[in-house]
Structures are given as C-alpha cells and as structure tokens.
C-alpha cells in the first residue's frame, strides 16, 4: 500500500504522474519551485517558459500559464513577456545545454541587463533528451555519447561555471545561487528568494540546480546520489553566490 506524496498546490494533477524518467532530478526541482510559488501565492501571476530538452516535459507540469519555446530561447521569450508586462512573475526553465551552450548569449545578456526574470537551470552534466551527449557541464573524464573516452579538457575545456559567470557580470540587485536536489529545503529557499528578488524588482535572478540523470549516467540509486553529492560538487560549489546588498568579496 502506498500513500501519494503531498503535491504542491500549483502542480497540475492531470499531468501526474509526470513524464520524467525514474530517478530524474527534474521532478524534485519542480517540487521545490512549486512549493516556493505556493508559499508566495503567485500561481496566477506566473508565466513559465519551458526550454527544449528534458525541461520541455515540464510544459504542462504546473497549473500556471506556460509556453514552450525553442532550444535556448526561453530566456528571450520570457524577457519579452516581462518587458511588456512587468506585473507578471516570469520564469525561464532550462537545462545546461539550453542555458550554457545554445542559449548562452541570451542568458548572459539578460543577466548583464539585469532583466527582472528568474532563470532556473537544471545541471545534470549532459544532454538528456537527445541521448546523453557531452554538455558544457560534463565533468572532466566523464563519459558521454560524444565523449566516449571521457571529457578531455584539452579538447573540450572545463565545465562551465554558470552561476559564477552570471554573478561576475550582474549589477547589484541580482540574486545568484547554486542548489542541489540533494538538499531540497535549501533549493526551495534559493528559489523562493530568487522569486522574491524578481517581485521586488531588484534585478536578474538565477538558480542553478545540480540534478540527476540515472538513465544516461547508467547509475543505480546509490551511485546516482554519490555522483551528484560527491563528484559534481567537486566542480560546482553549492550555496548562495550573490544577493542584493551583499558585500562583494575582496
């Protein structure tokens, strides 16, 4: 006998159980995001943009107005919505390929302009939907379909440090953090602060979430959690990186 877990109020019951693979971290990120939306009572004002890739499977996840876009183009679509109607709370939801590769010019320019939107980027170290190719976030030595002998840093460089890069180019007023599905309470806190930051009109908000992909990592449950908690955090430091009013580190 099983008891259905409590769902955030803004989740859409009709689309559950969701379409993500077993063990995928997207459901956890969207749970944290859903709870943050509930706690802020903003369900009716949210415009949620879903990027292409596994992020797209979130397109009917919420009972919030949602638009599918193109690969990498969620940031400009959501920016366009926000610029024309600043009363809405706009969220661009994307993967590491969408945010750091094909849509990097949009992410970094939206950040530089301090667009009053929230970009949520799910980092699972590879392209999930297309079958596990190397991504900007693939770890050195990590095997993927396009780096079958492991990511060679001579050829492919080091994993992109997205939040650090965004923090470096944003003005005061931006909120930047990296959370992980291994600490959902903290991730929800980051997402909630990021949404509040947008609603206060302070500036760009960006949360990267370290996430899991047992399907393409070909890992069992134990190995999956070991990878996200131990291997990924060697390169991706979890925590708040920038918040309005915080002094810059010397």
């Amino acid at each position, binding site marked *: 006998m099983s008891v259905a877990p409590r769902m955030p109020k803004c989740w*859409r019951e009709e689309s559950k159980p969701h379409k993500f693979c077993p063990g995928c971290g997207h459901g956890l990120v969207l749970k944290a995001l859903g709870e943050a939306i509930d706690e802020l009572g903003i*369900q*009716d*004002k949210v*415009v949620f943009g879903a990027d*292409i890739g596994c992020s*797209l499977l979130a*397109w*009917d996840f*919420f*009972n*919030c*107005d*949602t*638009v*599918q*876009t*193109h690969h990498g*183009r969620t940031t*400009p*679509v*959501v*920016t*366009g*919505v*926000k*610029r*024309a*109607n600043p*009363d*809405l709370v706009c969220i661009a939801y994307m993967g590491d390929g969408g945010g750091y590769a094909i849509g990097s*010019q*949009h992410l970094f*320019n939206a950040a530089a302009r301090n667009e009053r939107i929230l970009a949520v980027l799910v980092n699972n170290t590879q392209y999930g939907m297309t079958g596990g190719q190397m991504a900007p976030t693939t770890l050195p030595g990590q095997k993927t379909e396009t780096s079958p002998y492991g990511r060679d840093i001579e050829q492919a460089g080091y994993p992109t440090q997205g939040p650090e890069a965004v923090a470096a180019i944003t003005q005061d007023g931006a909120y930047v953090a990296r959370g992980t599905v291994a600490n959902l309470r903290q991730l929800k806190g980051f997402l909630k602060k990021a949404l509040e930051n947008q609603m206060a009109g302070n500036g760009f908000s960006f949360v990267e979430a370290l996430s899991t992909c047992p399907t393409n990592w070909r890992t069992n449950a134990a190995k999956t959690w070991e990878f996200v908690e131990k291997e990924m955090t060697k390169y991706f430091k979890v925590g708040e990186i920038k918040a309005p009013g915080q002094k810059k580190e010397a």
Partner: protein
Amino acid sequence: MAEKPIQGERKAFLTGNEVVAYAAVAGEADIMYGYPITPQNEIMHYWTRMAPKYGKRFLQTEDELSAGFTTLGGVLSGAKAFTATAGPGNTLMQEPMSMAEMMRIPAVFVIQQRGGPSTATVIYSQQEVTMTTYGGNGEGFRVVYSTATHQDLFDYTIKAFNTAWKYRFPTFVLGDGYQAKMRESVTIYDPQARGIELIKPTPYLGKPGSIGKDREVTHMRNTYNTEEELYEVVMSMAKEYDSVAPEIVEFDAREVDDAEIVIVSHGVVSRAALSAMLELRGAGYKVGYFRPVTLRPFPGDQLRKVADNAKRLLVVESALGQFNKLVQTNIYGSAATIDTIFKPGVGVTSEEIVAKIKATL
C-alpha cells in the same frame, strides 16, 4: 501622456525608416524589440525618440534571435509588439518566425532587404523573398506585404498589426534598403480619423483572474508527440490559412485587358515597371502591369487570368528568380511564356524595361 502622435493627417517628407516608425506609433504598437543592422537601424532610432512620449517601450537585444523571441514574448503578454531586421538578421530571425507560425502569434516583422548571400551589401535587394515568404522549418503560414512607396510603408505597417491580430498569423512588411533610406513625400495620418479601426490586442498568457475560478490555465505548445498529431495541427492551420487568404490577398493590375505583354513585379521595382508601362502605352505598345502587394498569400488566380489573356509575361526583380518562382508556381498550367529581367541586389530602372520590351515586341 502626450496627445495622439499624429492629429488628423498631414503631408510629410521623410525617409522610409522614419515612415515605419511613425506608422508603428500611429498604429498603436506598444513595444519594439530590435538589434542593429543596416539598412533598418533608423526605425529603431526614430522609435526610441518617439516611443517614451506615448508610453511605449523599446528593448535592444543581444542579437536577432533574441529580438525575434522577445517580440513573441511581448505579443504573448498582450502587447502589440514588433521588430525590424534585414539580410543576415532576417536569416537568424527565421527561427522565432517559425515559432510564431506554429503558435499563431501575431507578431509584426519589418524587413528592409539588403544584398545577399551572406553579408553582401548593406544597400538593397529583393533577395529575401523566398526567406520571408517560406523561410524557417515551416509551411509559409505568414502574411507578407511587399511595399513600393512611402505611402505603402505607412499604410501597410498600420495594416500589418490589424492583419496579424485579426488572423493570428505572423505578418511582414517587406521593404528594402532603397525604401528605407530614400526621402519622398507621404501623407501620414491618425488611422482612426480615417475610420480605420485598430484591433485591440489581448493576452495569451497572464490574463487577469484566478486560475480555476475566473479563468482556465493556458499551456501553449509547439511540440507534438506523434506524426498524426502534428498532421492534424498543420492541416487545420492550412485550411484556415486558405480560407482567409482571399480576404487578405491584394494586388494592383493596370491596362491588362488588351495587353500583349504584362510586366509582373513587386515592391520598389514595380515603380520602374509602372513608369515603363505608361511610357510604352504612350508610344502605342499594348503593355500591361501587374503587381502582387501580398506575396503570401499570392494573388495566383488573378495573375493566372492575366497570363492566360496576355500570353506573355515579363517578370522583373532584383533577385535571381525568387519572385519568378512564386509567379511560375501560381500560374502553373497557363500557356503564357515568361521573359525575365533578373538583377540580383541591383536596382531596376524603367529604361531597362522599356528597352527589353521594345526589343522583343
């Protein structure tokens, strides 16, 4: 807030880019998104000078992909949003345009054609016809107005917003570098003073009210799981496009009834064609003139009748047959023969057309 930008109507002497900016303001556009590229830059320059006076907005983006997609975002939030581009920018913008096609987003795009392929020239061409009518990975569910004069630029920029919002197909004003940069007289007017009703936009996303109580939630799709699902979507769009096409189609035909040869051209080239036709008629030649104003949908039935009647067409364009391809497809089955003047990326003068017809008649 300031009064209406244009009271009643008045004669003005402007560049085409200025005309577009005035028309967008007069047509009650709310926001422009744009990225610099010659020869459309001054549309942004004039818009950014006028817009704040009338509570309108502007965003300069990082590239044309972003200009196109932010424009779509603006429309989704219920704003009359537009952008302008040219050449390589038009190439990049095909991606957002195809999303507009799929999701029936009434965005307005102004294209000031420049030379191609590649960076080519910043001056002029009619080489963006194929791309603007059928670009992107789509089926050309678009409305494309090809303008010839500053009056056209003003009239059809205003009209483009109405067409887009009425039929919910992305709508294009296809100009060129000559029209963008040249100065000539134009009558600018307040559309409402002329009895033109401006369609009010409505939001797709973020409508007022509480979800589940006052309104339904909106989930907008452009991705489908099965071939059959996509087929249904595309075919129902095709059916709707075809059913409204006769209302949208516009063309100008002159002296075609007794013509032995009809000059077929569009956009700024049709000015040379018209001069040539008038000059040749004055000299006793039986020459006609046909100009599609809409390249999508194309006035195919109308042109086929003209072709069947005259039996000879002279197709003239500043491209290597892009417009002629539309002509041939649309008059398929007609016995008319086609002569051509193709000058890719180069202007056409009436003298050339006159000489060609005199040599062949």
